[in-house]
């Protein structure tokens, strides 16, 4: 039994323009101690997917279908009290905007202690000591003073760390991080990611990391799910996702990764913008933007299928690599003909056409660990995600 099982989760928002399905039939699992990424452009429904796990969706939004099981327990069936005890204690979340997540009129320390008290973790002096040591664990330089600071007195990076410390205060089994690196400058981003990887190991906490940045995914995640217009379009171990992207949208995202330290934003390699969720495109939701789209794409909705067998992925079961594109059920005539070009740190190129597995020879492990150390020492060096993201068609 996985730590977290999400089956067919569907979340709707009732807006003036109509009903928006921000998350539509989402299924995935997270194992104990695993770092799982949900990747997509903004507006794809990533934050909604995260908030749903703690049932934090508020009017006019609503979880209309699906199941969420945490250690086998039915989260959607929790009573108010069970839910309260689940939140923060079993699963904790750090919002996208960390400063806004904390109450401006109480100090950081007060709020960490309050969280621990709500879950009977610690009180009084013990709680204070624990809070300060947590602040230290997330690499806040002066934890004693951060403890007495109000949220507005912290910089963006410090606030993010303080929120993560708060989230860790009750030893959750699952930590949900919503865009933890957004709005931080690259050096701080790299430091924060390092802290996170560290924490995940020492606390043995599973992490669901929500991001639009594949560079972040490459740096610290085990598996990833790519989200497009409320749907899961590809789900794979991170290495496979980078070396062998099997959905055109994933390939497009990979091509648009800015290198850390690159400074300039690259033009998005996926032309166009995400669809209006009130009127989602028929068939494959990606077809208006997909360079490989054929007639069948506009009429038939591709199911998420296991790449090896081409069989649909039953809810809650974890295949190694699944993708939702007609290519993988043999319904696409032309096929996907992008190439994956991998540049290693020595600048050697190798080219790989999609659907084959030749790329792994390039030494992923070496490149990954190099990438991590490069982040803080020499931000100008090519970064793992960026390397793997080089794409040519």
């Amino acid at each position, binding site marked *: 039994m996985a730590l977290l099982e999400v089956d067919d989760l569907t979340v709707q928002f009732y807006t003036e323009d109509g009903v928006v399905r921000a998350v539509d039939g989402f299924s995935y699992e997270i194992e104990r101690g695993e770092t799982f990424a949900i990747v997509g452009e903004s507006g794809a429904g990533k934050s909604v997917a995260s908030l749903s796990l703690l049932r934090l969706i508020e009017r006019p939004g609503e979880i209309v279908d699906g199941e969420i099981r945490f250690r086998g327990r039915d989260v959607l069936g929790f009573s108010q009290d069970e839910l*309260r005890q689940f939140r923060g204690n079993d699963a904790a979340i750090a919002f996208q905007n960390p400063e806004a997540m904390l109450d401006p009129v109480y100090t950081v320390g007060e709020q960490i202690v309050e969280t621990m008290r*709500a879950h009977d973790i610690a009180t009084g002096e013990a709680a204070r000591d624990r809070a300060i040591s947590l602040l230290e664990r997330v690499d806040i330089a002066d934890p004693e003073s951060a403890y007495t600071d109000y949220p507005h007195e912290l910089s963006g990076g410090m606030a993010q760390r303080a929120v993560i410390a708060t989230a860790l205060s009750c030893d959750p089994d699952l930590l949900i991080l919503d865009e933890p690196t957004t709005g931080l400058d690259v050096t701080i981003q790299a430091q924060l990611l390092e802290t996170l990887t560290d924490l995940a190991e020492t606390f043995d906490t599973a992490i669901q990391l929500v991001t639009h940045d594949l560079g972040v995914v490459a740096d610290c995640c085990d598996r990833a799910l790519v989200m497009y217009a409320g749907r899961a379009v590809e789900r794979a171990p991170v290495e496979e996702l980078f070396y062998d992207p099997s959905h055109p949208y994933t390939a497009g995202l990979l091509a648009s990764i800015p290198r850390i330290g690159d400074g300039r934003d690259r033009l998005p390699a996926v032309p166009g913008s995400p669809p209006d969720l009130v009127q989602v495109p028929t068939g494959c939701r990606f077809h208006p933007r997909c360079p490989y789209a054929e007639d069948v794409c506009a009429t038939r909705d591709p199911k998420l299928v296991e790449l090896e067998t081409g069989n649909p992925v039953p809810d809650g079961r974890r295949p190694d690599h699944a993708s939702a594109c007609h290519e993988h059920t043999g319904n696409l005539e032309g096929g996907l003909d992008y190439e994956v070009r991998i540049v290693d740190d020595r600048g050697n190129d190798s080219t790989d056409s999609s659907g084959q597995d030749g790329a792994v020879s390039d030494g992923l492990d070496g490149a990954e660990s190099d990438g991590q150390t490069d982040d803080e020492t020499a931000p100008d060096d090519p970064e793992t995600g960026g390397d793997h993201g080089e794409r040519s068609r």
Partner: protein
Amino acid sequence: MSIVRYTLRRALTSVPVLIGATALTFGLVHLAPGDPIDVLVGFDHVDPATRASLRAEYNLDRPLWQQYLLWVRDVATLEFGESPITGRDVGPTVAGRLPHTIALGVSAWLLSLAIGIPAGIVAAVDDGGPADEVSRIGALVGIATPNFWLGLVLLFVFGVQLGWVRVTPPDAPLASLEMAWFMVLPTITLATALAAVVTRLMRSSMRRELEREYVRGARARGLRERTVLLKHALRNSLTAVVTVAGLQIALLLDGAVVVEQVFSWPGMGQLLVESISRRDFPVVQAVVLLIAVATIVANLLVDLAYAVIDPRIRHDR
């Protein structure tokens, strides 16, 4: 910035306001048409000798700015002179009425907060539900009811018809059970409109806070709903209510003018009305000045309350 420095700074900004208020109050006598002496003696006929001696006594023979400074000096030492109408010292006259007004004002103020804040919270949490509707209608009625009418109706029903309370204040010390019992009706009369305003304000500011991210954040941390509402959302909502509650202190004095008449309550409001109709200007001056000072002090307290409630205020300035 420390709270002490913040306080001093706020207090300093009150000084110009205080100067303005004293100047206006002082000007009352001089703005009124005719010779200030006529005003002072209530336009009675007086012989020239008395006129001259009064002129000297009230420093009216000096330039205006000197008169003002002299008056400020007197006032600062609580020396209000004597009333030319009643011949009594103004200071003690006003001071004798003050406790009654304060007692009525403070109890009405507390009652309005005690009703308005919880009612506003309930309405905000119930957003759109029956409790919200009831409080909305209640507040509307409360605001729309003129206090003199409410006072008369209460007095008629509970005093005349049911005979539960006296129609006029008992002959008892202010701090007595009889007095407290008598004060129930005037307190309700005075508190009704204010409670209605506080309810609506509390509701809207609480609603706004409940939409904010930190509330969702507090729930995400697994805090009890009571803690989320009463510790987090409430404290943030209070700034708006504190402003109004502070300013209402001045409005309460206004309201007291009417309510004290209805209930024959021997407070400042009644004194003010009596003095105006008697053209007893020194007394009017003293009462008006007192109201002005009370308002300024209330504002200062509001600013201080802000700083206590919200750390960003004491840090940002």
